[in-house]
C-alpha cells in the first residue's frame, strides 16, 4: 500500500510540472505589457522599462519560466500588485475560505447523491425513483448562480431566516454558529448540481451492478434484500462511483466561483475573477497553480481510496 501511494505521488510530479507549464504559457499569451497595466497608461517609458526589469520580463520566456518555478518551489509566488501583498498569503487565506464552502458541499453531494441514486435504482420505476429523477433533473438544469440568487430572495429577503451574504456577520459574529448560518445557503446552492450528477451516476451504476450474476448468487444464497442492495450492490457500484467523485470535486471547486460571487464569499474564486479583471497576472498564476495542485493531490487520495476498495487494482 505504501508503495502504491509513493508511486502515485511520484507520478503526480510530472503532472504538476505540466500544470505550471500550461499556466505559464497561457499567461505568456496575454497581449500587451503587464508593466503598463500595473503603472497605468500615464507611465513614462523609463518607469515601464524599470518595472519590466524588476519583474524579470526582459528575459527570454524559458528563463522567466524557470525563475518563476524556482521561486515557487521556495514558497515565493511573487507579490500581487493590485493588493500589494504576497500572492501566497492571499491565496492561502482565500483558499481556506473556499475549502470550508466547497468541502461542505462536496460532503453533501457525495452523501445525498449516493443515497438518492441507490434508492432510485432499488425502487426503479416506483414513486421514489420518479420523484428523485425529477428533482435531479431540475438540479442539473438550473444554473447554480441563479439558484443562489433565488435562495437569497426567498430565504434571506422574504423569510429572513438566513443572512443574505458574506462569511461572518460584520458586528458580533465570528463564532461557529455564525459561520454555519452564513454557510447554509451557499453550500446548498453549490451542492445541488453535483448532487444531481452523483445521483444519476449512482443510479446507473447500481442498475448495472444489480443485473450482474454475483447479485443473483447472493440472492440464491438467501441473503436479505437490504443487504443485497446496500452491501453487495453498493459496494460493487462504488468502484465506478469513486472515480467520478474525483471529477465532481473539480466541479464543486468550479461552481464555487459563481457561488462566491453571488454570496459575497471571500474565497479564491472571487479573488481569481477580480484578478483577471484587474490583469493581476502573478495573482492569477499563483492561484491557479495552487488550486490545481491541491486538486491533483485530492485525486491521488481518491485513487488510493479506490485501491483500498477494489483488490483487483494492483498495489
Amino acid at each position, binding site marked *: 500500500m505504501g508503495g502504491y501511494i509513493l508511486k502515485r505521488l511520484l507520478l503526480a510530479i510530472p503532472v504538476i510540472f505540466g500544470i505550471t507549464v500550461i499556466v505559464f504559457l497561457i499567461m505568456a499569451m496575454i497581449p500587451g505589457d503587464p508593466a503598463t497595466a500595473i503603472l497605468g497608461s500615464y507611465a513614462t517609458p523609463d518607469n515601464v522599462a524599470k518595472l519590466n526589469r524588476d519583474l524579470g520580463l526582459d528575459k527570454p520566456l524559458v528563463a522567466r519560466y524557470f525563475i518563476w518555478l524556482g521561486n515557487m518551489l521556495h514558497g515565493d509566488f511573487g507579490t500581487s500588485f493590485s493588493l500589494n501583498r504576497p500572492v501566497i498569503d492571499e491565496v492561502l487565506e482565500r483558499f481556506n475560505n473556499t475549502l470550508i464552502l466547497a468541502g461542505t458541499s462536496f460532503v453533501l453531494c457525495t452523501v445525498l447523491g449516493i443515497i438518492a441514486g441507490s434508492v432510485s435504482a432499488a425502487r426503479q420505476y416506483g414513486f421514489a425513483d420518479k420523484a428523485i429523477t425529477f428533482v435531479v433533473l431540475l438540479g442539473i438544469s438550473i444554473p447554480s448562480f*441563479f439558484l443562489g440568487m433565488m435562495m437569497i430572495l426567498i430565504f434571506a429577503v422574504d423569510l429572513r431566516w438566513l443572512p443574505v451574504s458574506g462569511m461572518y456577520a460584520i458586528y458580533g459574529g465570528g463564532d461557529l454558529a455564525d459561520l454555519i448560518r452564513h454557510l447554509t445557503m451557499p453550500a446548498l446552492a453549490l451542492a445541488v448540481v453535483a448532487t444531481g450528477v452523483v445521483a444519476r451516476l449512482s443510479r446507473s451504476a447500481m442498475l448495472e451492478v444489480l443485473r450482474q450474476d454475483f447479485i443473483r448468487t447472493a440472492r440464491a*444464497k438467501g441473503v436479505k434484500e437490504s443487504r443485497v442492495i446496500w452491501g453487495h450492490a453498493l459496494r460493487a457500484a462504488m468502484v465506478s462511483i469513486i472515480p467520478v467523485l474525483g471529477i465532481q470535486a473539480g466541479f464543486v471547486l468550479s461552481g464555487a466561483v459563481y457561488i462566491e460571487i453571488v454570496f459575497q464569499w471571500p474565497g479564491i*474564486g472571487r479573488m481569481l475573477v477580480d484578478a483577471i479583471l484587474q490583469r493581476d497576472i502573478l495573482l492569477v498564476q499563483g492561484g491557479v497553480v495552487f488550486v490545481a495542485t491541491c486538486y491533483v493531490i485530492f485525486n491521488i487520495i481518491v485513487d488510493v481510496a479506490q485501491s483500498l476498495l477494489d483488490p483487483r487494482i494492483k498495489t
Partner: protein
Amino acid sequence: MSAFFKLLARNRLALGGLIVMGLVVALALITPLLPLIDPDVTNTADRYLPPFSPGHLLGTDQLGRDLLSRLLWGTRLSLAVGFAAALFAAVAGAAVGIIAGFYSGRTDNIIMRGVDMLMAFPYILLALAIVAALGPGLVNALIAVSVVNIPFFARNIRGITVGLAHKEFVDAARLSGMSNPRIIVSEILPNVIPVIVIAMSTTIGWMILETAGLSFLGLGSQPPQADLGSMLGEARSALITNPHTSVIPGIMILIIVMSINLLGDGVRDALDPRLKSGALSRPMAATRVDRKDKPAARTQTDGLLSLENLHTQFHVKNRVYKAVSGVSLSVKPGECLGVIGESGSGKSVTALSIMGLVASPPGVITGGAARLEGHDMIGAPYPELRSLRGRRVAYIFQDPLATLHPLYKVGDQLIEAISCHRAISKSDGRAKAIELLKSVRIPNAEQRIDSYPHEMSGGMRQRVGIAMALANDPDVIIADEPTTALDVTVQAQILSLLNDLRRERGLAIIFITHDFGVVAQLCDRVSVMYAGRIVETGPTMAVLNAPAHPYTARLIACVPELGGGKRKLEAIPGLPPSVDDLPTGCAFAPRCLRAQDACKQGEIALDGMGPRAVRCLFPETNVAEETA
C-alpha cells in the same frame, strides 16, 4: 432512422423536451423578424418597469431597455454559442480520442498524458486562465468552454475506440486488405458516431450553462450585447429591489437547459442498444408471479422437489417469449436428474424459476408450481422464499468468475452463506468455511479462505461455488451448466467431485447441461428440452441407447464422439423456432423427417409408461413396448 424517432417519441418526457426545445429554437430563429424594440436602446426614464407594463411586456432593465427583446436576442446568442461550443468540443475531442484509442501504444500514451494534464485542472480554472489570456469576450468564452470540454470527449471516445479496435470485425477488415486510415473511417467511425451524438446531446446543456456562467462573471459577452448569462450578471445588483430582471433570464436558462437534458436523455435511451431490449432494468428480489389458476399451496408429491406444469415467460414490450411452457419434473433424495437442451430451449429458465431467480422484469412465472416436499414455493411470500434459498435448495452457476462477488474474500462469501440463515460466531464461521473448502478438495484451505476470486483459477473458483452451495447442507442442488466455462481436464475434476458429494450426502441434483457425455456420466435420469418443453424423459441409458423422440435421436447423432475418427456428421437442418413465435403442434416438426400433417395440429402430450415418456406422435422407438 425512423425507428430512432419512434423510440424517441415513445419517451414522453423526451418528447416534451423536444417540443419545448423546438419552440425555443423557433423563437430564436424568427427573433429578427419579430416586431421587437431594439434590445440595446436605452431609456433611463423608463428604468425598472415591472412586467406587463404598456409597451414592455416583460418590463425593462436598469437602463430602461425592453426585457422581452433582450431576452429573445439573448436566447438566440446563448443557444448559438452553446451549440457551437458543443460541436467544436465534440469534433475535436472525438478526433483526438479515436486516434489515441486506435493507434494505442506510444501515440496513445502521449495524447492521453496531455489530456490528463488538462483534466488535472478544475475546469473553470482553465477556462478562467484562457479568458484571462485572450481577454473577456463572447468568442473567447466560447473557445475557453470548448477547450475545457475537449478532454471529456477525448477520454470517452478513446474508451469506446479501444474496445472497438480489439473487436474481431476490425481484424477481419485488416485481412480484407484495409489500411489503418480506411479502417478508422469505414469500421470505427460508424460505430463511434452514436456515442458522439449521445455525449453531445447530454453535454449541450452543460455548455450553455458554462458559457452563461462566464458571461455572468462579466468575462463573456460584453455590453451592450447580452446573452442570458450577462443579463443575469447585470441584474444581480438589483436582485432585491427589482427581482424580475433576474428571474426572467434565469428561468429562460432553466427552461432551455432542462428541455435539452430531457431530450438528451431520450436520445441516449433511443441510441443505446442495451436499453432497446429493456435490459437496463434491475431484476427484483424474486421473479414476478402472475398465475391465472392458483394451484393448491400444499399437496402430496412423491419427489423431494417437483415442478408441476411450470410456465415462465418474458414480457418485452409487446412481445411474449414463452421460455418455459408447461414443464413438469421431479427429483428424489440422492437422485441426479439431467436437463439437456440447446440454447433457448428453456433449461436454465426452468432451473432459475424454481427459487424465483429469473430476472424480473422481464420474467414472469405465469403458471404451475414448484413444490419442495409438497409445499409450493412459487406462491410463497418473499421472506419464506428467502429462508429456503440456499438453506434447502442451493444453486451452482455457470461462470464462477462472474457469479462470485469480486470485492469480497471467498471466505467472507462462504461465511455469509451460513450467517444469513443462522447466527454464527466469527471464529465458528471461519472454521466452518475452512471445513467447506476442504470438503471440495481445495488445497491450502487455511490460506485460500483469504483469497479474492480473481486470485484463483477457474476450477478453484467453481469449487468455491460448490462449497457455497453446500454451506447449509441443502436437500437439493440445482447446477446450471457448472462446467461449461471450464477446460476439459478441470471439468472432469469438478464432475467427479459433484458425483462423490451427492453419494456422500444423499443430495438431490438437478443438472442443467447441453452435453450428452456429461449427462451420461453423472445423471440417473434425463429430460430433453426443446423450445420450452420437455420432449422426452427417462432413465439416462435408456434414452441415450434408444432415443424415442426424433429430436433426441438426431441431436445425439450430430454430436461427434471421441474415438469415431474423421467422418461426415449428421446435421439437423434448419434452426430452432423463436419462442415468441412457436408453431402450433410439435415445435420440432418443421425440422423433422418423420413429421406428418397431424404433427402440426393441436397439442401433443408427453406420453409414456413408467419412467419413460415422449412427446411425439411418431416416435423412433415405442416406449410403451420397450418398458413392457
